C-alpha cells in the first residue's frame, strides 16, 4: 500500500510536469531569463555604431535562444513521458508480480450478431471487474482491438472464472449470456481471453473463454 502511494505520488508529479499550465509557466520563465541575458549582451553593439546593421544581431540571438529553449523543453517533456512510462511498468511489476498475476482480455470477432455493452467478471464468486463499453470502444473491439478488462493476483490452485456479457443481439434485442471456465493457476502469469465470435450457422454469437499458452 505504501509502495503504491509512493508510486502514485511520483506519477502525479510527472503528470504535473506534463500539464499545459506548468509547461507555459516554465517556457515563460525561461524566455524572460533568456531575453534578459540577450538584452545585456546586445546593448554594447547598439551603442558602438547607429548606422551599422547592429539591430539585426540581437534579434537573431534571441530567436536562436528561443529555439534552443523550445528544444530543451521538448526534450524535457520526452524524458518526463519516458519516466512516467517506466514508473507505470514498475508499478505493475510490484503490484502484480508474475508468479501470482492473472490477466483477462476481451476480444470480438466480427460482431454482426452481438453488440457488446458491458462485461462482468467473477472469479471464485467474487466480482472483480465490471466494464461498460462506449460505442467507440466497441468499434475498436470490432476492428480487432483486444481489451485487458482485469489484472489481478491469484493464489496457485484451481479457480473458476464466470463472465457475463450484456449487449444487443440481432434485431436490437437485449442479450445477456454467461461463460464459465475452471482453470489451474500455476507458477507464472496466467492469461485468459474472453472471445465473442459469430456462429454463422446458428446466426448467434458464441462466447468462448480460453487460456493463452
Amino acid at each position, binding site marked *: 500500500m505504501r509502495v503504491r502511494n509512493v508510486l502514485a505520488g511520483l506519477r502525479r508529479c510527472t503528470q504535473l510536469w506534463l500539464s499545459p499550465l506548468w509547461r507555459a509557466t516554465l517556457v515563460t520563465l525561461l524566455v524572460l531569463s533568456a531575453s534578459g541575458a540577450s538584452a545585456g549582451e546586445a546593448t554594447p553593439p547598439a551603442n558602438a555604431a547607429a548606422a551599422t546593421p547592429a539591430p539585426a544581431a540581437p534579434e537573431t540571438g534571441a530567436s536562436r535562444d528561443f529555439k534552443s529553449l523550445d528544444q530543451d523543453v521538448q526534450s524535457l517533456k520526452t524524458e518526463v513521458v519516458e519516466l512516467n512510462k517506466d514508473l507505470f511498468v514498475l508499478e505493475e511489476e510490484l503490484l502484480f508480480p508474475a508468479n501470482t498475476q492473472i490477466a483477462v482480455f476481451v476480444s470480438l470477432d466480427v460482431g454482426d450478431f452481438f453488440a457488446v455493452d458491458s462485461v462482468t467478471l467473477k472469479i471464485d464468486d467474487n466480482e472483480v471487474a465490471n466494464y461498460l463499453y*462506449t460505442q467507440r470502444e466497441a468499434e475498436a473491439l470490432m476492428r480487432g482491438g483486444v481489451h485487458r478488462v482485469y489484472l489481478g493476483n491469484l493464489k496457485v490452485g484451481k479457480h473458476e472464472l464466470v463472465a457475463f456479457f450484456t449487449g444487443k443481439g440481432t434485431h436490437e434485442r437485449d442479450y445477456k449470456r454467461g461463460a464459465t471456465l475452471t482453470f489451474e493457476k500455476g507458477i507464472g502469469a496466467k492469461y485468459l481471453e474472453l472471445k465473442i465470435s459469430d456462429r454463422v450457422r446458428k446466426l448467434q454469437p458464441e462466447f468462448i473463454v480460453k487460456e493463452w499458452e
Partner: protein
Amino acid sequence: MVRMDSFRISLGARPTRTLRTCLRTAAAIFLASSVLGTTAARADLAGSTAPDFVLKSLAGANLRLSEYLGEVVMLNFWASWCGSCRQEMPQLDRLYATYRSAGFVVLGINVDDDVARAMDMARALNVSYPMVLDPRKSVAPKYRLGELPMSVLIDRSGIVRFVHSDYQAGKEQPYVAELRRLLNE
C-alpha cells in the same frame, strides 16, 4: 418552602438554558466546519485532472468522460427532488444550444436512487444535452459532491477549472464568463 421551591426551579431552569446554548453552539460549529470542509474539498478539485468515469445514458449508450477530451465539458449533478436543479437545467440547455458548435458539452449526472423517477423527470424537463445515471453513486464521491445542484467546468485538456454549487435563478453570468474563457483557450 416557597423560597426553596423557587430556588429549586431556578436551579432546574439554568442547566436547561445552558444545555440549549451548548447544543446551538455545537450545531453552528458543526455546520460551519462541514461547509468549510466541503468548500476546501471543492477548492482542491479545481486545478486537478477530472476523474474519468463511464455511465449509462438515458438514451441507452455508455458515455465516458475522457472521450470528450478536446471539448469544454460541464458536469451537472442533479436529482429529481432538487428544486434548484430543475430551475438550473433549462438555463444549461440554453447554454448548450448556444455554444455546442464551439465545442461545449453538458453532461447531466443524475444521482437518484430510483432510476425510473430520474427518467420521468428528465423527459419532463426535455433538455437536449446528454444525461447519465449514477444510482450507485460511483462518480459523486470522486467529485466530492456536497449540495445539489453542483456544476463542474472542465477545460479542453481535462482539467477541472471551476466548481459551482451556489446556483441562483437569474445569476448565470459567472457561468457564461467562465465558459467563454475556456472556449477561447
